């Protein structure tokens, strides 16, 4: 089954979209959680239960939005792509491998889109699950550290794909995360 899925993704250029959706949505997930964390910090309300519930609620919403949004979009785009192919060949491709490959790719991309933002959010707030062992403030700082590490890793991943300097690419993503932290922290001055 794994080989079938790989073949289907190769046939529909699905790997390219898979990487794109994974990075974009993991990036969104991490930055959203940075916003939640800084928000709790500047309002002096770093309560583990609150942080976990807000993040999970936001993560689940992003999961639903990402999964179904991508499913509907990809389904429409791939239907059009198949119709264009049928026009070029003057043939019906409804029983061809392309129809099945499109279905598989749409499903995989939808799941990856939804899961990447949810998993990134959960990973970043994971220190808050251990507040019986560490203080909320320590959990906060570790979470921020995890968020920046995730962004750096995503940058390295992008750098590997584009065959550019990977650490520079990671560093660029780190700067974006830092800007997000600084901007949201400015709200604390209001």
């Amino acid at each position, binding site marked *: 089954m794994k080989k079938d899925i790989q073949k289907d993704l190769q*046939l*529909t*250029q699905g790997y390219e979209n898979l990487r794109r959706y994974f990075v974009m949505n993991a990036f969104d997930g991490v930055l959203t959680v940075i916003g939640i964390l800084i928000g709790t910090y500047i309002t002096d309300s770093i309560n583990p239960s609150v942080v976990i519930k807000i993040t999970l609620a936001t993560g689940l919403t992003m999961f639903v939005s990402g999964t179904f949004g991508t499913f509907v979009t990809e389904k429409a785009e791939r239907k059009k792509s198949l119709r*264009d*192919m049928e026009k*070029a*060949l*003057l*043939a019906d*491709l409804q*029983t*061809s*491998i*392309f129809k099945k490959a499109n279905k598989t790719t749409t499903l995989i991309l939808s799941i990856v889109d939804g899961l990447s933002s949810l998993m990134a959010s959960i990973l970043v707030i994971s220190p808050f699950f251990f507040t019986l062992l560490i203080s909320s403030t320590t959990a906060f700082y570790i979470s921020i550290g995890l968020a920046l590490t995730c962004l750096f890793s995503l940058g390295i991943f992008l750098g590997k794909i584009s065959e550019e300097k990977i650490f520079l690419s990671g560093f660029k993503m780190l700067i974006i995360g830092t800007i997000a932290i600084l901007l949201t922290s400015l709200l604390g001055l209001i």
Partner: protein
Amino acid sequence: MPNNAIRRLVIDLLKPLESSLIDISKSLSIIEGINGVNLVVYEMDRKTETLKATIEGDDINFEKVKKTLDEFGVVLHSLDEVAAGKILIEESQILSDKHSLKRLK
């Protein structure tokens, strides 16, 4: 092998760019009765490739060949050569035959 077995097919095909030539040839070559497959691309545009397929075997099942090609989204343009029988007969070359003349050149 039956007396009326198809031994060789030469087909003009049109395939989408996305279909792999390697996968198509592999899938055709494992069909029972087929000994070998040769696919040559002779034209290409933005979305499609035109190819000539030469298939040889002891008893080629044309319906199975068509079904396999359909799965890959490959369209059969024309059947250019069919050789059937107990032995494989090559096209005879007669000097007066214009088509043969071109070949001889």
